[in-house]
């Protein structure tokens, strides 16, 4: 994206009959965009790998998937923590209202993205299978054999689908805001 952050680019639409001044809205910074799409891809991968490994139940493929899922989960946790830090330290120019941010929805999604890996991690700590790829082992964040493994991992699964519903909502609201944006950009310039 070549837009200057915070600047308005007033290009006129080509068709004269239905001319509509187009305003480039305040853009997200490049790191924010990278964080967003990396998170999106990781979440998609986590969901598919999670569902598939649970469906397979046992076997060598399932075991490999478990390892990958755990490793990626750690990655998601790291990315989301960095992302939150970035958003706090380097907020995008302009207010949430000008930028069409939905802070409540965004921070709920961030919380879910933090809670999800932590729940999974606690579950495997209790269950006692903390091994990840390349022979590493995660530190335990929950006493092994405390008997909460099933509960923790079930919650992890249900929360995953709850979060997916939030993601669907997020996509719908973002499309709505994006589609109606021209109107408000004009209204602000009146």
């Amino acid at each position, binding site marked *: 994206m070549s837009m200057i952050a915070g600047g308005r680019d007033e290009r006129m639409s080509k068709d004269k009959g239905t001319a509509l001044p187009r305003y480039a809205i305040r853009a997200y910074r490049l790191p924010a965009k990278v964080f967003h*799409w990396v998170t999106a891809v990781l979440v998609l991968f986590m969901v598919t790998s999670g*569902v598939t490994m649970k469906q397979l139940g046992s076997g060598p493929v399932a075991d490999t998937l478990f390892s990958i899922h755990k490793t990626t989960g750690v990655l998601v946790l790291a990315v989301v923590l960095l992302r939150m830090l970035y958003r706090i330290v380097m907020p995008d120019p302009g207010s949430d209202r000008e930028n069409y941010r939905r802070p409540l929805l965004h921070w709920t999604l961030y919380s879910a993205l933090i809670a999800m890996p932590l729940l999974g991690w606690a579950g495997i700590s209790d269950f006692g299978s903390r091994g990840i790829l390349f022979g590493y082992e995660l530190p335990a964040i929950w006493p092994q054999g405390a008997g909460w493994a099933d509960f923790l991992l079930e919650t992890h699964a249900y929360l995953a689908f709850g979060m997916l519903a939030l993601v*669907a909502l997020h996509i719908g609201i973002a499309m*709505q805001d*994006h589609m109606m944006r021209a*109107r408000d950009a004009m209204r602000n310039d009146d």
Partner: protein
Amino acid sequence: MFPRFFEGQVAQRLAVWGAMLGILVSLYVSVELIHASRMTEIGRDIEQAGVYVKSQVAADSAFARIAMAVQGDAGQPVVETEIAKLRDLLSAELALIGSDEAKSQLKAAEQALDRINDFRQNTNARISALVELRELRVVLNEAVAQSLAELHSRHVGLLASDRKNKLLIALLGLFVIGQIIFLEYRWLVKPIVRMASVLRNGDYAVRMLDADAFRRDEIGSLARALAQHFGMVHKDKQAALDEREELSGRLARQDELERESVVFQSQIADVVRLLEGHAGRMSSASENLVTIASDADLRAAASAQTTMRVSGNVDVVATSIGDISSALASVAEDAEKTSQVTAAARLLVQSASDDAKALTEAARTIEQVIALIHDVANQTNLLALNATIEAARAGEMGRGFAVVAAEVKQLATRTSRATEDIRGGLQGITSASVRIAERVERLVASIEEVDEFAASIATSMRKQDANSRVITSNTASTAEDLRNFAETLQRVASLVGDAKDAAQLVTKVSSDLGKQATDLRTAVERFVETTQRIAA
């Protein structure tokens, strides 16, 4: 976060929805496929377990028969047949289980069978082998049961996670579909319904589309196109309305013009009638003036004659007085004569005075006539001005009329100037006649003095010389006065001649005026006729 090409158009939205639902459906399908393959595996395991259990049951019954045969001391052939059967079954089991533990157990069982089949040993030894075999069988049976239980729990676990996965994916799918329906109803159905309502209700409802017009997608384009269309419709309507208004205004103006034209025609006709009347009256007034002037001329001539005669008489008086002064002897006689002559002279002077009075009277009458002519000329001038104004209002059609009005005005001006000239002449006449009256009075006084002196001559002889000198001088002065009077009369006569000329000019002018008025009426009538034809 959206890429630049993403505008939220219907096709792009459908792609997003399709991707979301596609991911969910693929997940569901892969879950289903994994489940199916897992179930196939489980089925195969169960089938295997069934075969195993069947062979186990057959082996159990074979074992029971062997035991019975051994305990009942049956013949070797019978036992041998049963043992052969059990061997077959055991080898089949071995093939099924395949584990090392099971293999060693089966080997032990085979050895036990060999011992049972050894009829050279005593019965007790064979029975102990039988017991050993039995224990081996129990262990094997337990292992089979264990593997079956494991199979079952695996099956149950797979079924549970499958159910959970499918349920959650389906719920998520329902949520996404519900959201798609909700949002697309808001984004697509409602704006279309609004547009339909705008199309139904016409251009004043177009403000309903204000919000839609600012959208980026096809609905936005459609709303803007509709707004533009209704803007054009509104403009056309306004233009038609304006045109109609202008047309009605033009018709009203035309009507007004026609009415004005009719009023103007009648006014012009009135003016022309008045003008004609005035011309006629002016003509007769100037004729009167001519008559009066010639009358004055006559009277002036008569007065001059009379004065000449007075002058002659005065000369006679002077001669007589000269005679008196030169011939003192005939004074009394001459005085008597003088008294008679002065009586005659007084009579003549009286007549001259009367003539002068008549002249003054005539001059006053002329002045009245001149005033009348002057009034008429002024009115004519006014009328000509009115006619000019009306002609200017009539525009192109009144141009000929304007020329005529200008002519009339000029005539009126000339008339006015002529009457001014006459008035000047008249003033000369009046003052001259006043002077005549004065002098006549002085003449009367002189004559009376002469009379007095003549009377006193008879009684006062001594003062005769002085008196005759006084008389001589008085007579000389009287003669001088008379000469002056005669001169004045001649001037009056010439002035009256001037007045007559002026009156003749006025007559000519007023006849011209009459002609012009007739021309004017003809022009107006033609104009009226033309405008009526145009109006018709």
